[in-house]
């Protein structure tokens, strides 16, 4: 079964709006990093944040006390529905499913909530904050804002979770009682996350992200949301979703990526939207790509956006759809030119492009892939 992309919403560190962000990427622009601090530590981290203008005008009673992740998701979800020309009403509210992909979730409120417990004791714990710490709080807010009354799922995973959500959408859409599936990926940044990823030797202290570098200097975290409306008909289709699997050690990532690529490249592939982000992922992906799809162009957006973890997969899908639609690829920024891959180092026309693979290798042992086609 193939599903089609009927609408898209993009909340990124380069701003919001699919066309506006896409144009900036084509121009070779990248988001500006800011630093983030913490009251009990001296260390500063560089991050790519969402400009306030990107979520301007998004208001709802449910969002009054909600965390940033919920606001990003609401903005992306509303944009996607609007671009699909879809208005939810009680009569069709059951016929759309919502799948929400996250990795770290509402970490800012979680930290605040636990900070009160650690600092003052359990009696100081806030009953207002606690519900916002639950993984499905952003999905719950979004469902309430949109009026979804049918299936709502929150999927948790690493950077590959957005593509797992596409697989799940396929599984749900087998049910003919559903007309649409709104798939949203969202993430918010907190100092705590940066510190955790640094201790895990995956973070670099300042930009740029250098994809496919020989030295794995690390990634910079970012935040935001991506949303797509999946329907049964449309020009850009999710032709095949490979649910992937897990790798036990980082050294094993390459094998599972090859398996995914072999399955998805049974037909000619014009380009691949990779998840290369300056970490161990890059080597695994470059080796797998060079062996399985040596002729495909390879693009990664992470030097421009940062590593969005739970939202990254949706960002990649939107990129692939835009590239298929506009027949161009943006330049890969800060890349190692000597890597044996076909990287578009400048804005590159792809007039005959018909098919693309979105590949995701997560930082926590999960990998998945999706093939898109334009008809």
């Amino acid at each position: 079964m193939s599903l089609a992309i009927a609408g898209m919403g993009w909340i990124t560190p380069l701003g919001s709006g699919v066309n506006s962000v896409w144009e900036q990427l084509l121009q070779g622009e990248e988001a500006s990093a800011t630093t983030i601090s913490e009251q009990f530590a001296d260390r500063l981290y560089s991050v790519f944040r969402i400009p306030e203008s990107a979520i301007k005008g998004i208001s709802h009673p449910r969002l009054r006390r909600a965390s940033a992740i919920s606001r990003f998701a609401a903005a992306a979800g509303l944009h996607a529905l609007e671009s699909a020309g879809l208005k939810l009403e009680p009569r069709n509210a059951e016929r759309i499913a919502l799948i929400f992909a996250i990795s770290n979730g509402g970490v800012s409120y979680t930290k605040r909530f636990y900070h009160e417990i650690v600092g003052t004791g359990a009696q100081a714990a806030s009953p207002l904050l606690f519900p916002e710490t639950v993984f499905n709080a952003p999905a719950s807010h979004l469902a309430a804002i949109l009026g979804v009354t049918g299936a709502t799922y929150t999927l948790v995973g690493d950077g590959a979770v957005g593509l797992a959500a596409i697989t799940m959408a396929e599984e749900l859409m087998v049910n003919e009682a559903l007309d649409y599936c709104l798939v949203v990926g969202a993430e918010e940044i907190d100092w705590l996350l940066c510190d955790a990823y640094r201790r895990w030797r995956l973070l670099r202290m300042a930009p740029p992200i250098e994809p496919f570098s020989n030295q794995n200097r690390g990634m910079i975290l970012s935040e935001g949301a991506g949303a797509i409306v999946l329907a049964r008909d449309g020009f850009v289709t999710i032709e095949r979703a490979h649910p992937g699997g897990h790798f036990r050690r980082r050294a094993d990532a390459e094998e599972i990526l090859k398996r995914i690529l072999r399955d998805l490249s049974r037909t000619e592939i014009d380009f691949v939207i990779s998840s290369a982000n300056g970490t161990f992922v890059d080597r695994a992906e470059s080796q797998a790509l060079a062996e399985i799809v040596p002729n495909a162009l390879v693009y990664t957006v992470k030097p421009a956006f940062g590593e969005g973890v739970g939202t990254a997969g949706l960002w990649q899908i939107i990129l692939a759809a835009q590239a298929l639609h506009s027949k161009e690829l943006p330049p890969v920024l800060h890349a190692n030119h000597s890597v044996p891959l076909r990287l578009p180092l400048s804005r590159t026309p792809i007039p005959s492009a018909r098919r693309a693979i979105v590949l995701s290798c997560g930082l926590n042992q999960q990998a998945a892939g999706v093939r898109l086609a334009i008809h």
Partner: protein
Amino acid sequence: MAQADRRESTNNPARVAVTAAGVISPLGFGLAETLESLRNARDCVTPMMRFSVTQCRCKTAGQVSDARLLASHAQIPRSGRLHRASHMMIQVLQELMTQQPEFEPELMVIGTTSGGMSYGERYYRSLSGGGDLRHAPTWIANYPAQKPVIDAQSVFGISAPCHVIANACASGTNAVGHAFECVRSGRYQRVLAGGYDALAEMVFVGFDSLQASTPEKCRPFDRHRTGMVLGEGAAVLALENLDVARERGAPVLAEMIGYGISTDNFHITQPEPSGIGARQAMERALESADICAGDVDYINAHGTATVFNDAAEGKAISALFNRVPVSSTKSMMGHSLGAAGAIEAVVCLLALQHQFLPANVNFTTPDDDVDLNIVANEARSAVVNTALSNSFGFGGTNASVLMRKYPRLSGRSQTGDE
């Protein structure tokens, strides 16, 4: 995937067998101990031992013994680094694989709410308090929600992709229900479904801050109920295309026949008071199974024992069903959040296999506002052909699954039977 695409069909839904299961909870390690605790209506809620609760209203929880849990996995490489949740997942998968060593899942669907939360807590306490952070990389690596699933898969050489569903307290039932749909649609033939959660201070304090947990006994549906107690555990079920299971001679423990899901959007923590969300989930499960309410012999309720949940669920059950026996087994083991739906699916499985109704313990006084046929305080023998299990979670997410005895007892005529 290639095979799956060929099989996909909505016109002729496959029947779905439960061919193996594994469970760990305060009721015991494994199916046999769980059955014994259920038959004896054992209240397994005990004073909290895992962390200090001196500032909390609630002082008790359903707890899984660490000594026993960790001792049974001493041979696993680096087992000391794994989170307790990983050990629980390994335990239940081991029990399942012992029953069905040839079961090769194409997909795993697992529910959780907290992942490796207690490792996150240790990291934060050490970081903010200037403590020892030498083990921080281990805590961080074992914190993600998918890690216990991957750890368990690795021990048994399973490489199937995994959906980790975090739909709050409905996660386990959503996982079982979605897995059921995946097999029924023909997209997959063998799916492992389940849930896990381990007690964590932050979550315990969170429910306490909401005054949702009780300093007293957990008394679901009792007029004098004062709230929930938390629990922990894990469970997995092997779901398989029934025809395929029969062809390979696998024992069919029960048949999964229906799943319903709804979102009521009423409030982030409270259910819609009329019970409409719960009712829709149950109605959709009945519709999915193509049976009527009168065919259900037992309901394992969500039954957290909070005033609001039990009132809403009670209204929904009494509106749909005519005095069907109802119990909340959370009264015996606490509420294990993301694991609850999976553990309670196993409870239903045992009820179907052994023809009894699990008890709702600590029940003293019926609630005049909800007209329910509570299985009060003692398990009792009964003819149980069909069981319904409910789970409802924060954010207004509601889920119900239906299971049927296999082979079905004679005397109840329905179509499409074996």
